[in-house]
């Protein structure tokens, strides 16, 4: 129930940003839209154990943005370089994160890392496509996993 309420409030705030009007008929449409959005969200993404707190996500935001800056710069450099330095390949990162929410959050966060793009979940881990196979991507991914696990204590398999 609290999950539903939290989501309802967030969608309501979203509606007010999109449609900043306090006229009763605007609010009525907003209420219907927000109820529908909450219902769909609960159906498609039911609250599970180890849900991610809003605060935890906000704590990851500055890093997320910074990484997206570095990643953009890195790929821009390669695209403009006359010789186009690329050594693409696939690497498999063995993760200890639980499948589902924790792992999906990890792939989404790391999809913005410079030079790496998650493209498959296998039994051995997550397969990444990388722009330069010689870079220390596995070490970097391990650091990111540690950071995520720090704000998401239930994310990892208990050993």
């Amino acid at each position: 129930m609290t999950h539903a309420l939290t989501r309802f409030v967030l969608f309501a705030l979203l509606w007010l940003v999109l449609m900043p009007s306090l006229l009763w008929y605007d609010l009525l449409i907003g209420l219907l839209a927000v109820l529908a959005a909450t219902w769909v969200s609960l159906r498609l993404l039911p609250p599970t154990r180890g849900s991610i707190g809003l605060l935890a996500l906000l704590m990851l935001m500055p890093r997320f943005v910074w990484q997206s800056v570095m990643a953009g710069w890195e790929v821009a450099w390669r695209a403009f370089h006359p010789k186009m330095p690329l050594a693409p390949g696939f690497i498999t990162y063995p993760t200890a994160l639980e499948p589902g929410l924790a792992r999906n959050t990890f792939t989404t966060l790391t999809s913005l890392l410079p030079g790496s793009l998650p493209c498959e979940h296998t039994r051995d881990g997550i397969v990444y496509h990388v722009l330069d196979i010689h870079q220390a991507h596995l070490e970097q991914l391990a650091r990111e996993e540690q950071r995520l696990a720090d704000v998401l204590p239930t994310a990892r398999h208990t050993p």
Partner: protein
Amino acid sequence: MSLLLNLWTILAVSLGVFFFLAGTLGLLRFPDVFTRLHALTKADNLGLGLVVLGLLPQMNSIHAMLKLLLIWLLVLFSGAIVSQMLAQAARSGEIDS
């Protein structure tokens, strides 16, 4: 003050355009689906972010600023998710790589 803000807008939007150009260049030059996905998602995310940051001081209400930031976040997250799905489709052979 408004001169400074205008300078900021010009600087940030121009930088944003540079990254959009880089993304497009990567799309044209890079050899396969995967490397092109890198170029499009990463460079364009940053380009859009800079354009949004540059336009913020030109908005006349907090509400319009929030809307701009919301657009950026939406594109950021959908880019992050869609790129994974396309990469997955390319790897499993559903689309030609």
